[in-house]
């Protein structure tokens, strides 16, 4: 049986979603799939396009998993444009005249930016904002400009204004309507939004009708408005809405809307049942949906229809949105303007803290119809669900928007009121029912739930709600989520941390006597040692702490498989003098140690026996080294590239900053190991975005990334703050690390910690940057205490004769452990295998 031919024109976000969902279907093997992409690269995330200016690369924005097209045998035709459709013979013709046959054809051609027909609009400094190529053109033009204007004060226009601002231009927004975001936001919200955006240095001009663009006098261009006023600029960015890309459909005779758009039915079929249209090129019920979520729903419907699941229909989509524009939360739900018959509203305006909230309710005051939130949009998820599911309002609906004082909790909606069909995550179309099923199948953690259902993994706006649904379902199943660290303590690590702090507990014996039972174990003892060190920073071999330490912490070296240890001296920032290198080499030679360069830019010395450790440390200390804490759940290294001192691309002195950071946080005990890196420019040679704390220099200061990870489960770090000076950078890192130490579980790296944190990155940023919990200065003081009480543990040990007694293999003999045997390989020692040991014993 020959395969059916499926052709998809357009590999944007919606086209790619279609392919990904189609490929998951069993029936997909019965199709030969071809996709056209006129751009030079496959689908990428246009929603986060502005991130391209804050350091993300085209690869970072890609929506295509590595090997996707190859794995699914999809013929990807990059840089290739379909120019006509021959419907009679079912052929798509390409620009170079090739004819590609189809049985089913999907049009996912998207939209193009609308440029109003203003004389002068085609000047080279007039640009649009849609593709990565557009962004490159903006970047190049901006480099020669001082002033930039965005035409259009809608959602995309404000995004574009942020981009111009980030590029360092004096930025203006010109809007035809009397206010910003006229579609989503009412007059009150628009007014507040304007004042917030202006306070960030963007000039806003509303009610302006541009009539022509001419040569400027102080700048390259001059915009002339209908009211006679003028504005000079070097660059104009048009962001005045989108228009469907429907020319292919039009010339092939498909039914079109009067003002454009390819008409589709509930199955996303055009007037030709073998041709589908999805996303922003499709017109359903006279409407174009210019958001990605409805496009994704159409993609699913088209997949279902082609594979024969006829029950699936597109029935319109909710156009509620929540986004962050230049750091300002803006959300619009349902009937934001109160146009429903009899609609009434409640509003709350706080001009001091810049918050505007309005809810629109039904005439009987029972149901929510819409809402506008500016400045603070935390309860967007709750309000949206109330509106979508017709949940009855509380007795006093104003409570939903009034600030909560006196520690009173915000009125919860009660997630059990939501029907199973309620869509919790609109980005990935995950319903409450799907989340509950996953919990019934045994998931008890937010991170696992996100991985299994994809809920909360795109914009993250629903994470808190996803957590509530999970917890409610767990409670319903009678599953108590036990976070007890072990059988000796009925508490989580975070709770034990608080008990230690609040009750000023200084030893394990005191802690277990007051709050635990039994003798303790290899789980709770090292954890308590770490908490005591994070809080009070005593010497870890103090008699009452000694028995709590893992052998690595106890012997301040890393135990290897044969019971010997490896020793790693600290090399801050990876900078080392020739004398330092020679000294390490001399020690290694003297004690016959195997040497290897580590991934953290230092040198590991292997094969040391217990009795040799103090002797090795003594020599390293005399040469100016100290402990590298390679054995501790603590700061490991701060990796760096060579930075502006030597590198012709370097923006700032990354090595200097790395040394400063490493010396500040060395010895800090944490729930798990912590790795840093500092890169001197966005080329990112230090790989900072794979570290718990990553710092990247830009022309305007330091960008701070957090919660990255390499290793078993790689996680790309998240940008939490940009363009920082040295002092602010260190302040934020102080807060971040102490907050992590305070709240993480045992052996939980920052990456998993963040994935499990309710509210995610936004919440973390609020705590660290906006000090939303009011604990910023407390965290800084606690860090200052740890920094000020640092001691080199190796030195303290070498200088304490009673501690040194422990550093021998036998308590009653100076003999060595005869089971430790080395053989030579590539000019160095390595542990002998059991087989080699047997042969040697026989030979002796």
């Amino acid at each position: 049986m020959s395969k059916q031919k499926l052709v998809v024109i357009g590999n944007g976000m919606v086209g790619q979603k279609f392919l990904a969902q189609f490929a998951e279907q069993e029936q997909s093997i019965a199709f030969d799939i071809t996709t056209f992409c006129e751009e030079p690269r496959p689908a990428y995330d246009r929603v986060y396009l502005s991130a391209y200016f804050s350091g993300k690369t085209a690869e970072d924005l890609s929506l295509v998993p590595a090997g996707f097209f190859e794995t699914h045998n999809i013929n990807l035709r990059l840089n290739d444009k379909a120019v006509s459709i021959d419907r009679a013979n079912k052929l798509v013709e390409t620009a170079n005249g090739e004819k590609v046959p189809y049985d089913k054809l999907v049009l996912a051609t998207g939209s193009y930016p609308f440029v109003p027909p203003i004389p002068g609009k085609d000047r080279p400094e007039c640009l649009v904002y849609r593709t990565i190529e557009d962004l490159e053109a903006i970047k190049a033009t901006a480099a020669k400009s001082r002033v930039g204007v965005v035409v259009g004060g809608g959602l995309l226009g404000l995004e574009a204004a942020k981009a111009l601002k980030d590029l360092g231009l004096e930025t203006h927004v010109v809007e035809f309507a009397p206010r910003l975001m006229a579609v989503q936001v009412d007059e009150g919200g628009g007014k507040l939004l304007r004042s917030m955006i202006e306070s960030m240095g963007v000039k806003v001009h509303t009610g302006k009708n541009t009539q022509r663009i001419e040569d400027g006098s102080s700048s390259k261009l001059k915009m002339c408005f209908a009211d006679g006023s003028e504005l000079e600029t070097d660059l104009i960015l048009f962001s005045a809405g989108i228009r469907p890309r429907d020319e292919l459909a039009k010339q092939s005779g498909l039914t079109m809307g009067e003002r454009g758009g390819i008409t589709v039915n509930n199955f996303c079929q055009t007037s030709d049942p073998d041709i589908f249209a999805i996303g922003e090129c499709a017109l359903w019920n006279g409407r174009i949906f210019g958001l990605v979520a409805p496009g994704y729903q159409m993609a699913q419907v088209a997949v279902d229809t082609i594979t024969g699941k006829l029950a699936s229909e597109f029935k319109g989509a909710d156009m509620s949105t929540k986004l962050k524009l230049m750091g300002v939360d803006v959300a619009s739900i349902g009937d934001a303007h109160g146009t429903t018959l009899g609609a009434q509203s409640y509003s709350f305006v706080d001009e001091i803290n810049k918050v505007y909230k309005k809810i629109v309710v039904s005439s009987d005051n029972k149901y929510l119809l819409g809402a506008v939130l500016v400045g603070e949009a935390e309860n967007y998820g709750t309000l949206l669900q109330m509106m979508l599911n017709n949940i009855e309002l509380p007795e006093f609906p104003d409570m939903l928007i009034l600030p909560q004082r006196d520690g009173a909790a915000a009125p919860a909606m009660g997630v059990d009121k939501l029907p199973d069909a309620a869509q919790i995550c609109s980005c990935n179309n995950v319903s409450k029912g799907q989340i509950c099923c996953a919990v019934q199948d045994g998931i008890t953690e937010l991170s696992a739930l996100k991985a299994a259902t994809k809920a909360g993994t795109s914009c993250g706006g629903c994470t808190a709600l996803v957590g509530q649904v999970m917890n409610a379902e767990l409670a319903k199943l009678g599953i108590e989520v036990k976070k007890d660290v072990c059988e000796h303590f009925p508490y989580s690590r975070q709770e034990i941390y608080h008990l230690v702090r609040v009750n000023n507990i200084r030893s394990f014996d005191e802690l277990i006597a007051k709050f635990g039972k039994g003798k303790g174990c290899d789980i709770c003892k090292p954890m308590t040692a770490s908490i005591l060190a994070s809080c009070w920073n005593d010497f870890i071999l103090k008699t009452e702490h000694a028995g709590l330490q893992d052998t690595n912490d106890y012997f301040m070296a890393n135990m290897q498989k044969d019971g010997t240890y490896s020793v790693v001296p600290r090399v801050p920032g990876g900078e080392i003098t020739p004398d330092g290198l020679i000294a390490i080499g001399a020690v290694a030679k003297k004690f016959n140690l195997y040497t290897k360069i580590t991934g953290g830019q230092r040198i590991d010395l292997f094969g040391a026996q217990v009795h040799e450790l103090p002797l090795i440390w003594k020599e390293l200390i005399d040469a100016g080294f100290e402990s590298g804490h390679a054995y501790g759940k603590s700061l490991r290294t701060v990796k760096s590239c060579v930075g502006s001192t030597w590198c012709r691309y370097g923006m700032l002195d990354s090595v200097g900053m790395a040394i400063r950071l490493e010396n500040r946080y060395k010895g800090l005990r944490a729930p798990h190991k912590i790795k840093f890196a500092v890169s001197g420019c966005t080329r990112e040679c230090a790989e900072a975005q794979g570290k718990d704390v990553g710092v990247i220099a830009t022309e305007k200061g330091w960008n701070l990334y957090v919660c990255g990870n390499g290793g078993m489960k790689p996680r790309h770090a998240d940008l939490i703050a940009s363009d920082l000076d040295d002092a602010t950078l260190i302040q934020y890192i102080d807060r971040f690390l102490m907050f992590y130490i305070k709240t993480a579980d045992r052996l939980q790296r920052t990456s998993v910690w963040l994935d499990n944190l309710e509210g995610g990155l936004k919440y973390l940023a609020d705590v660290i940057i906006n000090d939303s919990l009011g604990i910023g200065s407390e965290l800084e003081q606690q860090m200052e205490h740890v920094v000020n009480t640092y001691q080199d543990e190796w030195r303290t040990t070498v200088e304490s004769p009673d501690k040194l007694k422990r550093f021998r293999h036998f308590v009653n003999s100076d003999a060595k452990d005869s089971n430790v045997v080395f053989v030579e390989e590539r000019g160095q020692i390595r542990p002998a295998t059991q087989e080699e040991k047997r042969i040697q014993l026989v030979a002796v």
Partner: protein
Amino acid sequence: MNAIADLNWTPVCNVDDLLPNLGVCAKVADKQVAIFKIMENGSANLFAIDNHDPFSEANVLSRGIVGDLKGHTVVASPIYKHHFDLVTGQCLEDDVRIPVYPVRVQNGRVEVMVA
């Protein structure tokens, strides 16, 4: 009778050489013995087991963390974290048993009996 029995006890160190809730390793003939001092309600109990960890084949058990698990007084191997009952030598995770040795304090000296 007593004299014969005493011949089998080997003194290895002073009781003060043992720190609370920590182990040491003693060499007795060709054997390595891990000796632990475990504190309970203010009094000390001594335990002696073989120092050899059968899972890693390294002589490291004296360097493990001690405690209790499900009612057993145990040491956790510092390499792969198996737990061994200090009274019986039984591994809690696997069907393996390691040798245990009698241990006592005589006149301030710690003595073990290795058959």
